[in-house]
């Protein structure tokens, strides 16, 4: 297991959002987190890298990380592609990417990695010196994934990478994510509204409702589950 969470509670101010979640992400696998709006998907990802007040146990790569600062968790190799893409709007595309590698010790690997990322997303190479705020939504989403890749992460937390993308782009992005997992062995946790696409990509999946896990299993098993099919896949 690359990541295990036990009895995870989290919330904003007085509002509790997660009520004791248990889940795990297998090394090298893609785990999908499904659920309706407001179920706590984004909060779950945020709690894993200390962006919200969190209680419970989280271990990453054999080390307990609850209570650590966001920066330090990132430095262990957890890359978060946040809700809303988190673009540095006034910096160039290339500067955004270099920032992704900011906390890496192996500075010499940054140049080859930049090339590798441009290999996945050739469009970003064309936009290299362009101010990132002027990129289209889809390009910014690619930039967010690429920035996360520049960390050479062990685990990527992807918060709705399909948000606001045209269906064709979503398919392209998901196939690139699959490539990345296969070639680089990065584990991923994927939060998605688009349950069908997510279950196609993922190995495992959890279904959450109002801050609790109500169903878990292999992606195939969830795809066949009647209640998932009716509520989230719509057939």
């Amino acid at each position, binding site marked *: 297991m690359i990541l295990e969470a036990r009895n995870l509670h989290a919330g904003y101010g007085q509002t509790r959002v997660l009520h004791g979640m248990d889940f795990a992400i297998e090394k090298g696998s893609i785990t999908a987190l499904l659920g309706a709006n407001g179920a706590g998907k984004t909060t779950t990802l945020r709690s894993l*890298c200390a962006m919200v007040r969190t209680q419970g146990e989280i271990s990453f790569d054999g080390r307990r990380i609850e209570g650590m600062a966001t920066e330090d968790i990132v430095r262990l190799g957890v890359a978060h592609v*946040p809700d809303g893409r988190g673009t540095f709007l006034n910096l160039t595309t290339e500067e955004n990417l270099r920032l992704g590698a900011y906390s890496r010790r192996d500075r010499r690997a940054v140049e080859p990695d930049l090339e590798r990322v441009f290999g996945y997303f050739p469009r970003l190479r064309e936009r290299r010196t362009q101010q990132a705020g002027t990129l289209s939504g889809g390009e910014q989403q690619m930039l967010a994934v690429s920035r996360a890749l520049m960390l050479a992460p062990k685990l990527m937390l992807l918060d709705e990478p399909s948000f606001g993308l045209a269906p064709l782009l979503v398919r392209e992005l998901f196939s690139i994510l699959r490539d990345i997992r296969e070639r680089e062995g990065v584990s991923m946790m994927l939060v998605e509204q688009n349950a069908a696409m997510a279950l196609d990509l993922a190995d495992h999946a959890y279904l959450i409702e109002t801050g609790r896990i109500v169903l878990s299993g292999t992606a195939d098993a969830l795809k066949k589950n009647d209640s998932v099919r009716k509520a989230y896949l719509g057939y």
Partner: protein
Amino acid sequence: MDAFLHQVLAGLATGGIYASLALALVMIYQATHLVNFAQGEMAMFSTYIAWSLINAGMPYWPAFLLTVAISFLLGVIIERVVIRPVENAPVLGVVTVFIALLVILNSVTGWIYTYTIKSFPSPFPKEMALGRFMSPHELGAIGVTLLVLAALYAFFRFTPLGLAMRAAAQNPVSSRLVGIRVGWMLALGWGLAAAVGAVAGMMVAPIVYLDPNMMGGILLYAFAAALVGGIDSPMGAVIGGFVVGVLENVLGAFVIGNELKLSVALVLIIGVLLVKPSGFFGKVHVSRV
């Protein structure tokens, strides 16, 4: 014509000093969206440190460098100890802290060094060939200012740390997500601003002499410079500094007289705020209500 040229060149020299201080203001503004009213007094205090070092027998340039280093540290400490606790306080609270810092630095300096005006040495020779248009100190001050500005530009533009500082200023949340220690970046920003201010103080002190109130007027010109350029534009602040320096000198010499020079700054501040609040190089901010 010679007299006019002389005033323009002298204006460029003081303009460089305004530009440095304006840049220090902009650096803090970009990170906190607040104007540090104590920036001038911090520079003044640094200049007194330099004066102490030189009086203790240290040669000028080592004293200069040591002062810059000490000022950097003091800037970092001020951020950590004084500003950090009010980080999330309402704007008015933080502004009050800035003003308190101004008054405290001023009084403490007066208490340690007295309010007697002191002379401050210039590192540049007394006589030189170009002397007809510009004093050697003025020329030297321009040189030092340009060096500092170029070094800062290179630092922010070409080093990973400089990039991280820019990132932390504009998007703290995303910065944390790439592993940047945002709190330390803010402290570093204060350190750099204090260091730049120290250079400005040491360059202006031979002209205005050393006393605890020496920076009052200069900070006002720096405000004008930062506003003319656009408070969120480093490049604008620098250009604004030179523009204000030249305007102040030329208008003071030929139009309104030396006594009313300071009003040039005030007129510029009010004029820019009325006509073009974002300055000439700043971004226009639109907010939806």
